[in-house]
């Protein structure tokens, strides 16, 4: 799963804007021509034994199991796990994060990088018995391109997908894109019979994944007996007979349930709980980057257009104090936009550190320009964590001399303010996902005129850099490109990272084969490879 999101708000509650963000294939030095002839799953465990049931404790039940709901795809780690159980995608990631064939056996671009030809594996069937062939793949992408069917339509309407024969799919795009597989081959493929208006893909999903839905209410999945993949040893997948997601909102109770064996593994979305779990030798902890809490500046506002104001604001932020103001260990200070486990190596590019004297100096300069110091309106989603952190941030901004009003809005109103075209705010707190994925996906956030560019940020240099990046897969060239993007972001100070957090999975001795390759949904295990230890 390669979709990343900008969750507006703090600590990931409410996913409101989606941006494509994908992991890079760093091993490649030329445009990808991937090929595979097998249907085996890489990374399987030779000790794995079939049978049994695993229960995964998750923070909240997925709002929907329909991959076309919301912004098109999962909005939480639990949702991503459910989609992974029910559906297949064209290409998946291996343990190193590199893209590997799945339903797509190979993908080849033309010289202009505007047409990608994808070869599809044969013999795959959906759980209703219908074939997952090229026509089904094309139908999936074409259906999503209609705004009446998916809010994700704007993403797919730029791509023409066709099935010239049962094993070939072509993706035709107007502008060159060397990263199409990384950004667009992660779409859950649903049975064409459910690609009709009114189909209930939430309660009656039909996919080709390792599991089928047994009961929507209890989030129970049972083994798909006709699943088409096997492991490296020829053992049919999935190993498990049953899989269940158990929503347990409180992490302390989730740990207790794991200790007691009521659940076998759990997702953890906060640093302190991970630290607590790591102290218990009975648990296995898999820690990952959890995203960045950031402040974005609305560049349409006169006050914010003044670079000196943005610079002064940046110097007011004491990230160390912010990190200490909430639960110890929950956050780490963030000084780089690409800090959270990016697949692209960036050196330097650090945002200004706390320097109140410099901030006050800049404030004095702004005042001396004769326009007076603007009063700033800071908006944030109304969540306890946000309220704790943003009050501290507001005090820091005020200390530099800015008059600041803070509005804590409920999620719906917050989204309406940011997405609905309202410009009645100067600064907003957001949570950016861990950019372990391909940074090309950030173009939705940073390129002029993109719908997810909520700051209305516009820098022709950045636009050109993203355009240039579409034509190469050379890691060195890409690093150079994104180094420049990072430098521009630090200069412009429109997106200012504040803190990073950790998330992860914790499992007891029962849960085996836990691999979480997804760089966006770091708590999502590869469900087909999960197995239960015999007790």
């Amino acid at each position, binding site marked *: 799963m390669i979709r990343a999101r900008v969750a507006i708000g703090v600590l990931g509650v409410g996913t409101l804007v989606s941006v494509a963000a994908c992991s890079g294939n760093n091993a490649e030095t030329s445009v990808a021509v991937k090929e595979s002839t097998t249907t085996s799953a890489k990374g399987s465990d030779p000790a794995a034994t079939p049978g049994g049931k695993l229960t995964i404790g998750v923070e909240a039940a997925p709002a929907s199991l329909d991959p076309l709901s919301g912004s098109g795809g999962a909005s939480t780690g639990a949702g991503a796990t459910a989609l992974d159980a029910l559906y297949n995608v064209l290409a998946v990631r291996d343990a190193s994060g590199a893209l590997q064939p799945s339903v797509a056996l190979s993908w080849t671009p033309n010289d202009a990088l505007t047409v990608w030809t994808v070869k599809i594996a044969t013999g795959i069937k959906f759980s209703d018995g219908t074939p997952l062939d090229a026509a089904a793949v094309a139908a999936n992408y074409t259906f999503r391109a209609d705004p009446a069917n998916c809010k994700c339509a704007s993403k797919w309407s730029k791509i023409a997908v066709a099935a010239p024969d049962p094993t070939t799919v072509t993706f035709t795009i107007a502008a060159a894109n060397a990263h199409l597989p990384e950004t667009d081959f992660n779409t859950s493929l649903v049975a064409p019979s459910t690609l009709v208006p009114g189909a209930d893909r939430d309660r009656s999903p039909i996919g080709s994944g390792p599991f089928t839905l047994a009961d929507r*209410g209890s989030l129970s999945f049972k083994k798909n007996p006709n699943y088409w993949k096997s492991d490296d040893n020829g053992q049919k997948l999935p190993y498990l007979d049953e899989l269940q997601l158990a929503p347990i909102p409180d992490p302390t*109770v989730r740990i207790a349930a794991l200790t*007691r064996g*009521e659940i076998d593994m759990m997702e953890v979305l906060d640093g302190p709980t991970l630290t607590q779990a790591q102290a218990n030798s009975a648990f296995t902890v898999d820690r990952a980057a959890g995203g960045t809490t950031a402040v974005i500046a609305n560049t349409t506002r006169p006050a914010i257009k003044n670079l000196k104001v943005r610079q002064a604001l940046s110097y007011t932020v004491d990230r160390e104090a912010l990190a200490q103001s909430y639960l110890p260990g929950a956050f780490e200070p963030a000084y780089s936009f690409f800090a959270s486990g990016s697949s692209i190596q960036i050196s330097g590019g650090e945002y200004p550190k706390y320097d109140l004297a410099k901030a006050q100096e800049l404030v004095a300069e702004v005042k001396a320009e004769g326009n007076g110091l603007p009063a700033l309106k800071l908006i944030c989603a109304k969540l306890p964590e946000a309220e704790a952190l943003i009050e501290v941030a507001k005090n820091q901004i005020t200390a530099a001399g800015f008059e600041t009003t803070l509005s804590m809005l409920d999620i719906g109103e917050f989204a*309406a303010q940011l997405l609905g075209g309202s410009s009645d705010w100067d600064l907003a707190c957001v949570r950016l996902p861990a950019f372990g994925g391909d940074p090309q996906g950030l173009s939705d956030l940073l390129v002029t005129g993109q719908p997810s560019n909520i700051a209305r940020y516009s820098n022709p240099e950045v636009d050109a850099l993203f355009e240039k990046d579409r034509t190469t897969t050379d890691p060195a060239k890409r690093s150079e490109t994104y180094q420049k993007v990072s430098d521009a972001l630090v200069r412009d100070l429109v997106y200012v990272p504040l803190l990073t957090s950790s998330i992860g999975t914790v499992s007891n001795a029962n849960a085996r084969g836990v691999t979480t390759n997804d760089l966006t949904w770091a708590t999502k295990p590869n469900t087909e490879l999960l197995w239960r230890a015999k007790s």
Partner: protein
Amino acid sequence: MAVVETIPGGASRRPAFIRLGGRILTVIGVAIFVSAATFFLLRVSRDPVDVVGAARGADISNPAVRATLAAELGTDRPLFVQYFDWLGNAAQGDLGVSYLRPDQEVADTIIRALPVNLELVVVSQLIALLIGIPMGLAAGARAGARLDRVLSGIASGFVSAPGFVVAIGLITLFAVRLPWFPVTASGYVGFFEDPWTNLQQILLPSLALALPMVGVYTRVLRSDVADTLQEDFILMARSKGVSTRRVLLAHALRPSSLSLIPLVALQCGALLGGSILVEQLFAFPFGLGTSLSAAAISVDIPVLLGVSTTIAVLFALVTLAADAVARSVDPRIDG
């Protein structure tokens, strides 16, 4: 036509059918008042077009998009028309659909959650009364003595302990250290489906809800029992040689429970929608409190309206029942 009757002592009361009719009208009035207040307050504070538009990612700054959404939601009509439409449908059991999950009927959400909450209310009240009444009687009977101070101290502890700490403490003790009960009720099964599993799942959460009430009931009953024991009829009973135990259970408890009965009713009503902490900590897959909280965060007006009105009606019904119980305890109470 006589519409009053005389009861011993000279007071008069209305016939039963008139009292019942009045009570039913009260319940209907409560439903209308609560739903109207909820509806108009929510609608004044938020335009559903903003909520639904944001959820769908629609461009709600575009007047045409807003107009289309308003027509779809029916919010382009006068507020009173919208409210009475809702009320008419609600009277027929149709509470509408969620703004954010159009495939989800509000009535289904309530019907699914209600058994959990009713069971939590009933079991927690039973536990609270089973513990609180003996404690209150014992403390009241020995008012001022060491036993009274110990029991009153325990009661104060129950009242003042934070619910979260109580719940986590119970889980740690009775589900992890002593694995007698499951940690969570995430796999909740109904009582009639599997009574044993259901009781295992429901006991710990009910205990977490009951302990603060034990404290309250103990203190209220203790005070009333202490007063009752000073009454002449108690002194007479004692002078006839009736045992203390019998004095307490047969003579003092009934008149002393008049403060307790409405208090229990109030707690029942409060628990119907106010058990969100326990619902979440014990991971119940559904519950009225959780639904209400989620709807409040997302401003899902139909769900808020349906759930809050349901809770208000149930609250009124519980109060009605409590009044009936109180009248049976003391016929002098006029209804």
